[in-house]
C-alpha cells in the first residue's frame, strides 16, 4: 500500500469527499469541528492537506475571488483516484478487523452498576 494514512488524514480525506464541490480550507475545518467537537487550527489543517497533496491523494485548484475574504481566492480540493483507493484500502482493512473482533467488542449496557 502506497503511503500510510493517519487518523486525521483519513478524516480530512473523507470530509473533502463529503463536501464535494464546496471543499476548501474553512469548510473542511468547520465540518470536522462540528462532527468531532474538536478544535483544529487552520495551520494544522493546511499542513495535513499539503502532506496529502504531496502523497498524491488530493488535487487542488483556485476558485474565484469572494467578498468576505478581502477579495482573496479560495483553493478547492478534490480526491484523486489514488486518494479514493487509499480510503478503500483502509476501509477494507477496518472491516476485516471488525469481523475478527466482533465477539469481544460487544458492549454490555444491561447491567446497572
Amino acid at each position, binding site marked *: 500500500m502506497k503511503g500510510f494514512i493517519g487518523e486525521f488524514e483519513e478524516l480530512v480525506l473523507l470530509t473533502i469527499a463529503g463536501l464535494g464541490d464546496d471543499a476548501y*480550507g*474553512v469548510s473542511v475545518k468547520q465540518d470536522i469541528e462540528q462532527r468531532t467537537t474538536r478544535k483544529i*487550527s*487552520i*495551520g494544522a489543517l*493546511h*499542513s495535513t*492537506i499539503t502532506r496529502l497533496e504531496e502523497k498524491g491523494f488530493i488535487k487542488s485548484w483556485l476558485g474565484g475571488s469572494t467578498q*468576505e475574504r478581502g477579495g*482573496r481566492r479560495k483553493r478547492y480540493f478534490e480526491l484523486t483516484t489514488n486518494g479514493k483507493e487509499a480510503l478503500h484500502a483502509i476501509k477494507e482493512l477496518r472491516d476485516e478487523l471488525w469481523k475478527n473482533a466482533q465477539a469481544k467488542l460487544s458492549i454490555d449496557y444491561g447491567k446497572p452498576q
Partner: protein
Amino acid sequence: MGNHNKVNPPKWPQRLLGWYCDPLAAEDLLGDVDEIFYYNLEHMSARKARWKYVWQVFSLLFSKAVRKRRKEHREKYGSEGFFKGFYLFNSYLKVGFRNLVRYRFYTIINIVGLSMGMTVGLLALAAYVDVEEVDDFQTNLDNIYRVITHYDDGDRKRTYASTSAPVSDLVKEQFTGIEQVVSFNSSFNPEIVLGKGTVPLFGYYADQSFFDVFTFELLAGDPATALSDPYSLVLTEKAAEKLFYNVDPIGKTLEVQDAGIFTVTGIMKEYPRSHLLFEALTSYSTLAALEKANDRTFGLNDWGPVTNFYTYVQLAPGKDVSSLVNGLNASITAQFEGARGSVSFGIQAMSDIAKTDHSNEIGMGWGTAALAVFLVLALLILLPACFNYANISISRSLKRAKEIGLRKVSGGQSSHIFLQFIMETLLMSIVSLLVAVYLFVLIRAEFQSMVVQGSRAFDLEINFQTGVTFVLFGLLTGILAGLLPAIYFSKLNPIETLRNSSASGGLSKVRVKKWLIVTQFALSLIFIMGVAVVIKQYRYALNYDMGFAYEQVLDVELKDADQDVFRTEFGKLAEVENVSMSSSIPGSWESTSTWVKTEVKGDSVEVYQMFIDEHYIDNLELTLLAGENFPQTVFKGEQHILVNEEFLKNFNLATPSEALGQAFLVNGMELTILGVVKDFNHLPLRERISSFFFRYNPERLAFANVKLASGDIQETIEQLEGQWELISPTTKFEASFLEDDLNEGLVSFIVMAKVFGFLGLLAIIISCLGLLAMVVFNTESRIKEMGVRKVMGASVSQLAYILSRSFIKLILIATLIAVPLGYFFFDQVILRIHHFRAAVGAGEILISVAFLFLMSLITIGTRTIKVAHVNPVECLRDE
C-alpha cells in the same frame, strides 16, 4: 454579517506572514483566516475573534503548508532576501556617493564637524576601553578578590582599598575555599645606595604567593622562592637596568639606605597595564625583620590603621564570595569595639578595581569620575555636530524633495527612502571616522601628557577591541545624525513635492533649528569663557605677592656639604648676595607640620613648620612685626620659634607684642615665641595661610637659599657648580630657582586652559560650521528676494543687514543664556577649589563674548555680503 465593515482583523500578523512568505503564494491561506475571523465575529466578541485570528495566523506561520509554499515560491522566482538586498544596497551606495560629491560644500562642512566631534568621542572611548582592559593579562583575574575596608565615622563614609594587616592571617586561618592569600604593604620606597648617591625605587612588601596568584613573568630567578627570605629583592627590567649595567643582577647585593643589605632574587619582565604599580618588590617577611633590626613598627599585628596594608585572596573557582564577607565581619567585631566609627570589610573583584575610586589605592587610580565628566564633555561636542547634520539635511529638503517624489512615484517605498538616507549618512560618518582617527592619533600624546601617569594609565593604542569600538561608534554616530532626516524624507508626500509646493517644514521645525544654534553657541561661549577665566587665574597666581622675595633665589640641595663651609665658600663669590638655609621650600606642597599645645592643658593644634637659619628672614625679605630674629650663636638645642599672624589668631593672642615670650609644647620641648612674622604664603596659593612657625635647628637644614645678583645667570651657575666641586666632590650639584618651583605648581592651570581651549575650539568650529550652512541655505533661498530689493533701491549694507539680522539675534540670545551660566559655573564651582583666586570679572566675559561675535560675524558676513553684492540681473533673469 452586519458589523464586519467596522471591525477588521489586526494587520500586523498578516504582515508578519507576508514578510516570511510572499503573500501571493499564501493567498488562499490568508483568505481562510480572514473568513474564519468574520465568521467568529458573529459568534463571539471582537476582542476574542481578534485573538483567535492572531492565533490562527501563528499556527499557519509554523505550519508545513506555509513552509512549502515559501520554498516553491523561491524556487520559481528566486530568493528576494540577500541578492535583491545587495543590489539595492549597491544602488544606495552609488547614489549616496554621488550626492556627497555633488553637494561638496555641505559634505565638507558635515565631515569636518562630525570628525571633530568624533575625535573627542574617540579619545573618551579609547580611555574607557583602556580602563576596561586593565589587568586583563592576569590569568586568575576572575578568581582574585581584594579585601576592602568601609569606614563610617558618623560624618562621612569612606571606602579604603587597604585593610588592617592581621586580616590576611584571619582569612588564611578561618576560611575554606581559599586557594591563596597575598599580603601587601605599599610603603616600600627604598633609596638604593649606588656609588656616591642614591637611586629611589618604589614598590611593595609582598607575600611569597605573589607570583602564584598574579601573572607577572620572571626573566630570572625562581618565582616560588624569590620572595620567601627577608631582604630579598625583585626588580623590574627597567629598574634593574638603572642599577646594573652589563652585569647579571641575580645574587648581587644592594644597600638600601636606613634598612640594610638586600639580595636580588629575581628580575621581572615589564608588565602590561595593571592597577598594581611597582618597580621593586621585597618579601613580606622583610617587614618583621626590619621591625626587629631597626626598632621600627609597621603595625603588623595592629587592627587599628588601615593605611599601608592590602590583602588579596584567590578563591577556588565557583566559590561564593558573600560567605567570606559575612564571616570576616562576624569575626572582627571584637577588634573594633572601642573604635570611633564603624568599620566593616568588603570584597572587591580584581576586575572591578580599575573602575572604582577608593581611598588609599594601592597603585594606579584612574579617576573614573573624571572620566565620566570627560565622556559627558565629549557628548556635548559630538551632539551639536550630529544636530548640524540633521539641520543641514532638512534645510536642503527642498532640493532633494523632487528626487524623492520621483523615487516614490516609480515604486520606491518609504522604507527604501529611509534606507537610502541612512546609507548616505553612514557613508559620510565612515569618512568622518577616518578623519577622526587621524586626528585622534595626532592628539593622543598630548592627552597622555595632561593626565598624571598618563602613558602608564592609558596606552590609547588602537587594537582590535578599540578598533571595533571605534567602528561601532562611527556607525552609531551616523545613525544618530541620519535618523531624523531619514524619517523626515521617507515621510514626504510625493504629490506635494512634485507639485512644487514649498510648504514642507513647518514652524516647529524652524524653531527647533533655531534652538539648536542657540544651544551650540551658548556652549561654545562657556568653553571660551573657561579659557579666559583660567588664563586670568594663572596670571593672577603668577603675579601674586606671596609675601616673600623669590626673585633670583637659587635653592641648592645641601646633601652632605658642611653648612659653614658652604656659607663661607659661596659667600666669597661676587655674584652671591646672600646665603641662608632652610629645611624646605616655601609655597610648595612639601611642607611638614607638627602638633602644638599651649602649656595649659588643651587640644593640640596643627601648625606648619620650617627650620631655618638666622639669615633666612633677611634673605627672603620677610617682615618681622615684633620681637627679633634667631640669634647668631652656637646651637645648644631648640629654644625659640618665630610665628606668623595666623598662629596668633589660632592661640587667641591679640597683638604680636603680647605674644612674645609665650611658651608652647612642641614635640615635648618647651619653645618660646621670639618674634612674629607677617603672614606669607607658606603653602601653594590653592591653600589658605595656616598657623605656621619657623624653628631653629641646623641639623634639619636641607637647602641653601642663594640670592644671586642679576647678571649672566648661566655663567653664575657654572661658577657655583665649580665651587660645589670643592665643597662636596662626591655629590652632584642640584639646584633650582625658587621662582621656577613656585611656577611649577601652576602647571595645572596650563592643563586646564589647554582642555578648555581645545574643547572650546572644537565647539566653536562646529557651531560656526552649522551656522555657515544655515546662512548659506537661507541666503540661497532668499536670493530672488534680494534681487527684487536691490532693484527697488536697497543698498548692499541694507541687504547684508537684512540677511544677517535673524542670525545675529540668535547669537545674542545664546550670549544672554551663556554669560550667567558660565559666570556661575566658573566663579562658584571651578574656582572654589582655590583659596587665593581672581574673581571672574567683566573683562573676561567681554573678551569671550567679543570673540564669539567676531567668529560668528565672520561666518555670517562671508556669505551675506557676497549675496548682497550679486547683480540683480543674475538672479532675476530666469523668472
